[in-house]
């Protein structure tokens, strides 16, 4: 439509972020709760088991859930304080319509009719695909599945994508290329048995904290830890070998390691012969990739590259772990397959203590990429362009195959198309692209151009402030379903409370919209369990096969690892959900016995050629810029920037800069500096630390507005996965001018309100009444 009518400060006054500190009912010194409900954390991909304390239909605290095998009671600060997101004063409690002066409260009927009328109007005028949908992977499997079906059959648009596009798609694409399936190769217990652990491009301690313990357990068993990262992140500190590679140079390091393995015959020739295809070509591609060559590119001493390769090659067992540092690049897929090449060349896969896994950043990052809310995919990780796959899903959905649209645009491409005026309407569910996509200024311009935007969310995120219609959805603890952790373990999320005020469960909202669009016949569900049952059938025979998994089994066994296909003949032919069997025990470790998921059962080597990143440093922008996370914040901060104790732990982003660079630029810790790239600039305080490469600066990305790291990043995409190059940009840094500093201080002061300090117009008391229920 147009720019949001209010200023940032006005939005802050009305919708937060407000720093919330106290549980409903205040702090009590005796335990006071009615119920203790087993569930999981709502944040990162580890999906820690947790117990929530419940009183009067509100979550009032937590207890460790010792019996859950993955985390055995352990939690990070986010999990501990997540209960403060419930009963939060910023919570959206009723539908709203945008007015020239802000938002007005409307009824559900009005909100839904207006949304549906706009969808129909825009689609009649510009075609079905002119209305797009974006969703998040904090959603349960059931919701992800429903979104995929909803966009295709209710909105009838091809343009649906998800925020995993900003996260694990490179890993997904790389895994599929190498192994034919997209999942962590093993359950985390295998980490503890590895004799060498090669960690590259992942700040495990802050992004996947519980995994720290698995790695320490391996170390106690005698494992060597190799850590490659441009920063001396907390775990790198005690690694046996630290490789401070330059951002964007990962594939050079990995190619050189493969070169050494082949040169020194540290490869498993029998494994290569029996279980893989394409080794010769890949070996050729690294024949000149000497450690000396890689040292020039990466900045790591050649001897250390040799040592890393030898340790990995010589060890009996070994694991490779990576995450966004290596995947968030225009070379993301190249980097992932380069890791796979190492694992395959040494046969360190499909055996205890061996494997190659990506660390999924988002809660349901794994499950969310399996059930069809990617633009190119149907449930079960099926290909939307494959006629057989389409036919099967059409049968499950009971629709003619032609009704399923083809492949649509990816997340960043959708924003590009909105900017170009090709997409006119948008519906989003738990997705905050204004903070999470690169080049925020561009994306803001795009949102301003939309003719209509309806958002389903529980807080008014930076992106949601652009919406014409706001539909209050549900928090994690208000709906039940399943989620799939980074290990590949399907777990059960329980709902200790119901949504407050007029807020509703997301899936019920989608059902209503579908009904009003006249497509209700495809969406006859009365519970999320029914959605899961249909998901099982839809996934059957796909690579992400959930057909042998039931909710009950998930609960009774503390999670089932997919693939869990059916194991009896009876179910093989049935299209009757009630007849699906559930005898499969699940698959904690993939590829056992060297069996891979390509049609011939063999894994693929992928030859990679070294190339530079989308943007490299030059005279004008001489410094590498990279981004990442901090432990107390999560993704775009929609939730964590509202939880007081977590904000106190890390209230604002800081620019990490090495003393050597700081000295050359005349910068000291706490100084205000201006960071500029070709996309924009950020005014931020410096943290001078010798734990970062001297040619690189780092900033965490969880903040919005003028504190957003994504004002600086670029929209260049990996050609295969279409993941944006978040991790590599060229920037320049200088001391801020006094005016800039004043601006920075103003932005910092106006980034949040505390509960105690809310303006009169905030209406907190009125909201509290509703929140109390």
């Amino acid at each position, binding site marked *: 439509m147009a720019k949001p009518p209010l200023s940032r400060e006005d939005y802050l006054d009305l919708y937060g972020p407000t720093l919330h*500190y*106290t549980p409903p009912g205040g*702090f009590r*010194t005796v*335990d006071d709760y009615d119920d203790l409900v087993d569930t999981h954390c709502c944040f990162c991909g580890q999906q820690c088991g947790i117990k929530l304390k419940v009183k009067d239909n509100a979550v009032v605290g*937590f207890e*460790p859930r*010792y019996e859950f095998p993955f985390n055995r*009671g*352990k*939690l*990070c*600060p986010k*999990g*501990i*304080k997540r209960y403060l997101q419930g009963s939060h004063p910023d919570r959206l409690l009723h539908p709203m319509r945008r007015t020239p002066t802000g938002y007005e409260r409307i009824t559900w009927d009005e909100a839904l009719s207006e949304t549906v009328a706009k969808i129909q109007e825009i689609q009649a005028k510009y075609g079905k695909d002119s209305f797009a949908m974006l969703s998040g992977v904090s959603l349960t499997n059931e919701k992800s599945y429903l979104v995929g079906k909803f966009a295709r059959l209710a909105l009838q648009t091809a343009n649906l994508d998800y925020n995993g596009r900003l996260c694990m798609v490179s890993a997904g694409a790389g895994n599929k290329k190498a192994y034919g399936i997209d999942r962590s190769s093993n359950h985390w217990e295998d980490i503890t048995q590895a004799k060498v652990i090669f960690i590259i491009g992942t700040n495990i*301690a*802050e992004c996947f*904290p*519980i995994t*720290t*313990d698995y790695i*320490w357990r391996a170390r*106690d068993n005698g494992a060597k830890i190799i850590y490659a990262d*441009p*920063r*001396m*992140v*907390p775990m790198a*500190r*005690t690694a046996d070998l630290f*490789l*401070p590679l330059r951002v964007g140079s990962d594939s050079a390091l990995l190619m050189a390691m493969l070169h050494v393995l082949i040169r020194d015959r540290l490869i498993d020739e029998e494994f290569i012969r029996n279980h893989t295809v394409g080794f010769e070509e890949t070996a050729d591609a690294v024949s000149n990739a000497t450690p000396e060559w890689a*040292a*020039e590119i*990466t*900045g*790591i*001493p050649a001897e*250390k590259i040799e040592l890393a390769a030898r340790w990995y090659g010589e060890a009996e067992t070994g694991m490779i772990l990576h995450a966004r540092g290596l995947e968030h690049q225009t070379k993301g897929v190249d980097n992932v397959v380069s890791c796979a090449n190492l694992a395959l060349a040494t046969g360190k896969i499909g055996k205890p203590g061996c494997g190659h896994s990506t660390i999924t950043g988002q809660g349901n990052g794994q499950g969310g990429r399996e059930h069809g809310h990617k633009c190119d995919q149907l449930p079960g990780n099926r290909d939307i362009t494959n006629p057989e796959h389409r036919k099967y899903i059409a049968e499950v959905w009971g629709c003619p195959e032609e009704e399923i649209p083809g492949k649509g645009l990816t997340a960043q491409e959708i924003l590009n198309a909105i900017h170009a005026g090709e997409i006119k309407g948008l519906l989003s569910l738990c997705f905050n692209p204004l903070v999470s996509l690169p080049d925020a200024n561009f994306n803001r311009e795009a949102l301003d151009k939309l003719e209509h935007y309806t958002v389903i969310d529980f807080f008014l995120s930076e992106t949601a402030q652009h919406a014409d219609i706001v539909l209050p959805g549900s928090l994690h603890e208000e709906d039940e379903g399943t989620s799939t952790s980074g290990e590949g373990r399907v777990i059960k999320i329980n709902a200790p409370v119901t949504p407050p005020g007029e807020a509703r469960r997301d899936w019920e909202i989608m059902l209503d919209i579908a009904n009003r669009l006249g497509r209700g016949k495809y969406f006859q569900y009365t519970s999320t369990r029914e959605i899961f049952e249909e998901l099982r059938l839809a996934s059957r025979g796909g690579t992400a096969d959930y057909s042998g998994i039931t909710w009950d089994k998930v609960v009774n066994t503390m999670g089932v690892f997919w693939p869990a296909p059916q194991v009896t003949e009876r179910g093989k032919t049935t299209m009757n959900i009630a007849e699906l069997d559930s005898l499969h025990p699940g698959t904690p470790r993939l590829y056992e016995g060297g069996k891979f998921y390509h049609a011939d059962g063999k894994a693929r080597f992928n030859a990679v050629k070294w190339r530079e990143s989308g943007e490299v440093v030059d005279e004008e922008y*001489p410094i590498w810029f990279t981004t990442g996370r901090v*432990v*107390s914040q999560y993704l775009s901060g929609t939730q964590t920037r509202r939880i007081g*104790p*977590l904000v106190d*732990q890390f209230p604002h982003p800081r620019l990490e800069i*090495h*003393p*050597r*660079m700081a000295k*050359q630029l005349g910068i000291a810790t706490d100084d205000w500096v201006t960071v500029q790239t070709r996309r924009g600039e950020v005014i931020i305080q410096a*943290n*001078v*630390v*010798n*734990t*970062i*490469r*001297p*040619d690189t600066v780092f900033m965490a990305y969880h903040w919005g507005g003028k504190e957003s790291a994504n004002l600086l990043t670029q929209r260049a995409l990996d050609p295969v996965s279409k993941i944006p190059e978040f991790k590599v940009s060229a920037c320049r840094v200088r001391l801020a001018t006094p005016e800039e500093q004043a601006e920075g201080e103003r932005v910092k002061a106006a980034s949040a309100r505390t509960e105690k300090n809310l303006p009169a117009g905030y209406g907190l008391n009125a909201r509290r009444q509703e929140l109390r229920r």
Partner: protein
Amino acid sequence: MSDLRFFIDPIRCIGCKACMQACSECATHRGKSMIHLEHIERGTSTQTAPMVCMHCDLPTCAAVCPADAIKRTEDGIVQSSQAPRCIGCSNCVNACPFGVPRYYPEIDQMLKCDMCYDRTSIGQKPMCASVCPSEALFYGTLEEFQARRKGTPKNTFQFGAQTITTKVFIVLPEGEIGLDMDVISHMDARFEPDAFDHLDPFAHLEPLPQAQGGLL
């Protein structure tokens, strides 16, 4: 006395503050954390060190308390000051060799870690040791610890003439742990400016003075 012990291993600590956030959820002092996290100067290190009450066998804090407000239980746990007795004099704060007790002016009373007495007294683990993602904080028997972990737990400390033994063990690392935190010292071509040129945006500027083993 229970044979369950508390172990602190700073080498494992990742500075995540889960312990502090969880401690502030204990029933007896909800909203306040009794565990401290020390940061070594962030400019030069990511090392952090958690600190709970050491639960001394002969607690100095109790010895200097004029109001007899600090009690040690039979299972070796040194409690926070007792509310009606504590006169807020802060003698304990000053005397504790580990710097543990804190004075809270809003309640005019000393509070400190009581090893989650509400939990440990009924057989549960303390909150901080339950949640610690990397088991830098561990609660269990010495045997359990030794069966699965490396490092030497130590619970005797010397402060001048005073020897203190504690219920809480500090874990000393096995062998030498090299903690060279400056990234430059792990990089290539440190002393060959030409080779470093294309990696270092400041190579064209005046070289920095070199000190032992690295730049700066």
